[in-house]
C-alpha cells in the first residue's frame, strides 16, 4: 500500500474567503437572533408551553446525531480494519467534532437562561438523561480529540486502533443517549418507545455520512485534488445501505405503534391527517429523504454520477431535518392522552399550533455554519486531507 501524504489546504483563494465570509454572515445572523430571542424572551419565537422544543432543537439534534455518524468512517477504518477508509479517518474525526460543536451551540443558545450554562456543568442530576448527555458530549470532544492526536502523531499511531474502538463505543452510547431523551418520555404517546434509541443510531449513520460525503467532495473539488471513484463509490453504496436501514426502522417504529390501540391516535395524526406533519412525513422524510436518494444511488442511470451522489446526500440531510421536525414538533403537537376513554372538550386536548419564526431558523442555520466554518479553517491549519485520493493511491488493488 502506498503511503498517504496529508497536506493542509492553501486557503488563500478568493473562493476560500468568500466561503468564510458567507458562513460568517450566517453566524452573525444567528448571534443576532439569539440576542433578540434572549433579550425579548421566547415570546418572539413560535415556541410555547405546548411546543416547548421547536425549530432550534430540530437543527441541534440533527447536528448532534449527524456528528456521531460522521465518525463512522474513521471507525470503519480502525475498528473494522477496512484500509480503504483509513485516509479519510482524520477528516471523519474533524467533521464529527465540528458538527457536535454546531449542534451544542444551537442547543445552548436556545436555553431560557444560557447565562447559567455553568450551572449545567456543575449541578448534575444523574437520573436525568439530559445530564448524561452533557457528560457524553463533553466526553465525545475529549475522546475524538485524543483519537485525532493518535492519528496525527506518528509515534502514537499504534494506539489509534484502541482509541478508535473506545471512540466508536462512546459514539454508540452517545446516540443511544440522544435517542433516549425522547424514548423515556413515558407521558407522550409519540415518544414512549425503546426503539427510539436504535433508530437514532441508524439515523446518525445516514445523516453523518451524507454530511461527510458533501464535505469530502466539496473540499477535493475546490482544492483541485484527485478523488478517485474507488472511495466515492464505496461511500455511495454505504449511504444507500444506511438510508434503507433508516426506512426500515421508521417502518418498524410506526407499525409497532399502530399495533397498540392507545397510540393509534398519534399514529393517525402523523401518517394520515396531521396536515403539515403528515406532508413532511410522506413527502419530506420518506420520499425526498428516503426513496429518492435510494433511486439516485442505485438506479443504473444515475449510479456513479458524483452530482447525483451530492444531490442524494443533500436530500438525505433535508429528509433528516424533516424527520426530526416530525418527531420533535409533530410529537408535541399531538396532545397527551390525559383521560383515556374520555374526550376533552375544554382546557386541553387540541392540536398545538406552531409557526417557526425567522430567528429560530437563523439560529439553526447558524449551527450548520459554525460546523462548516470550523471544518474550513481547520483543514487549512492542520493536515486533515490526503493530498490525493486517486484510485491508485487509495486502493492499489482497485480495478476499473
Amino acid at each position, binding site marked *: 500500500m502506498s503511503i498517504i501524504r496529508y497536506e493542509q489546504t492553501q486557503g488563500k483563494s478568493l473562493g476560500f474567503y468568500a466561503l468564510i465570509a458567507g458562513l460568517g454572515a450566517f453566524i452573525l445572523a444567528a448571534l443576532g437572533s439569539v440576542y433578540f430571542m*434572549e433579550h*425579548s*424572551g*421566547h*415570546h418572539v419565537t413560535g*415556541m*410555547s*408551553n*405546548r*411546543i*416547548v*422544543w421547536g425549530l432550534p432543537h430540530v437543527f441541534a439534534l440533527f447536528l448532534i446525531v449527524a456528528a456521531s455518524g460522521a465518525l463512522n468512517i474513521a471507525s470503519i477504518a480502525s475498528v473494522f480494519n477496512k484500509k480503504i477508509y483509513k485516509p479519510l479517518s482524520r477528516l471523519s474525526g474533524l467533521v464529527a467534532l465540528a458538527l457536535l460543536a454546531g449542534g451544542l451551540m444551537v442547543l445552548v443558545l436556545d*436555553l*431560557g*437562561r*444560557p447565562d*447559567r*450554562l455553568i*450551572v*449545567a456543568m456543575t*449541578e*448534575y*442530576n444523574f*437520573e*436525568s*438523561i*439530559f*445530564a448524561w448527555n*452533557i457528560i457524553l458530549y463533553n466526553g465525545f470532544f475529549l475522546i475524538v480529540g485524543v483519537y485525532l492526536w493518535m492519528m496525527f502523531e506518528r509515534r502514537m499511531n499504534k494506539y489509534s486502533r484502541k482509541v478508535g474502538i473506545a471512540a466508536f463505543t462512546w459514539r454508540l452510547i452517545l446516540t443511544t443517549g440522544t435517542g433516549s*431523551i425522547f424514548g*423515556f*418520555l*413515558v*407521558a*407522550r404517546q409519540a415518544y414512549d418507545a425503546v426503539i427510539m434509541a436504535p433508530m437514532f443510531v441508524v439515523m446518525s449513520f445516514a445523516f453523518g455520512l451524507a454530511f461527510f460525503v458533501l464535505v469530502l467532495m466539496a473540499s477535493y473539488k475546490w482544492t483541485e485534488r484527485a478523488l478517485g471513484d474507488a472511495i466515492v463509490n464505496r461511500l455511495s453504496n454505504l449511504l444507500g445501505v444506511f438510508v434503507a436501514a433508516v426506512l426500515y426502522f421508521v417502518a418498524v417504529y410506526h407499525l409497532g405503534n399502530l399495533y397498540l390501540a392507545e397510540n393509534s391516535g398519534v399514529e393517525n395524526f402523523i401518517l394520515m391527517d396531521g396536515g403539515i406533519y403528515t406532508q413532511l412525513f410522506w413527502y419530506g422524510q420518506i420520499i425526498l429523504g428516503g426513496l429518492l436518494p435510494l433511486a439516485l444511488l442505485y438506479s443504473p442511470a444515475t449510479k456513479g454520477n458524483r452530482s447525483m451522489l451530492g444531490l442524494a446526500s443533500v436530500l438525505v440531510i433535508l429528509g433528516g431535518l424533516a424527520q426530526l421536525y416530525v418527531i420533535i414538533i409533530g410529537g*408535541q403537537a399531538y396532545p*397527551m392522552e*390525559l*383521560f*383515556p*376513554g*374520555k*374526550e*376533552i*372538550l*375544554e*382546557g*386541553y386536548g387540541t392540536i*398545538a*399550533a406552531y409557526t417557526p419564526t425567522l430567528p429560530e431558523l437563523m439560529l439553526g442555520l447558524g449551527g450548520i455554519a459554525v460546523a462548516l466554518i470550523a471544518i474550513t479553517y481547520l483543514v487549512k491549519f492542520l493536515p486533515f486531507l490526503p493530498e490525493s485520493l486517486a484510485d491508485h493511491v487509495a486502493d492499489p488493488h482497485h480495478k476499473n
Partner: protein
Amino acid sequence: MKELNRREFIKNSTAVTASVATVASGISLTTFAAGPKETDPVTNEKRWGMLIDTNKLTEVDIEDMVSACQEEHGWGEETHSTGDQKPGWIKKVKVKDTATQRISNLALMCQHCEEPPCVDVCPTNASMKREDGIVLVDKHRCIGCRYCMMACPYDARSFVHEDLSNQKEHMPRGKGTVESCTLCVHKVDKGEQPACVEALNSDAVVFGDLLDPTSNIHQTLKRVQSTQIRADLNLNTGVRYSGI
C-alpha cells in the same frame, strides 16, 4: 531561593485559606443579637395532598380557583405572550366520557407526584420535590431547557416567555425559567391552605396531610372512591379526584 519562596507562598496561602474557612464556618455559628428564629426543615412525616370532588365542583367554582391562583401568584397578566405561551398554573378542563356522554369539570394543575417525571429528567436538579411531597422549581438553578415540560404528563408547567416585573414578594418569577403550581408552599408553611382551596371554602376541595390518619383528607379518601389522573403511570400523585 526561588523554590523556597514558592513553597513559602503556598504554605502562607494555605494558612490564609484555612483561617478564612474557620472564620466562615464560625459565622454560621455566630448568632444575631436579635432576629426571628428559623423553622426546622420539613420532613417526610407529612405528605401534602388535595382531593377534588368533581361532583360538587361547579364551573364557576373552578374559575374562582383559577383566579385565586392568579391573584396569589401574579400570573396571567403577561402582555407579550400569546396563545399557548401564556402561563397556566391551574386550568379548567371539561371532559366527556365517550361511552356514557357524562360530562365532568375539573381543575388541573401540578399533581405533586411522589415519583415526579419532571424531577427525574431535570439535568440541574432545579426540578425538585420537598420532603413533604411538594414539587417545586428551584429557579436559581433552572437553565430553561424545558425538558421537565416535555416529561410532565399533566401539561402542568409553564415557561416564562417574557420579562416580568412587580412580582409578588413570596413568588419570584422570571423570564427564561419554568414555573408551576407550588401548592402555595408559602402559605402551607405558615399553616394556611392553598389559595384555590381558601377561595372555594367548601368540601368540594379538601387539602391536608395524606399521611395523618386524623386529617379530613385522609379520612375522606378512605371513605369515597377516588382516582389519580394517569394512574397507569404509577406516579402516586398528591392531587386526587373523585367523580371522574
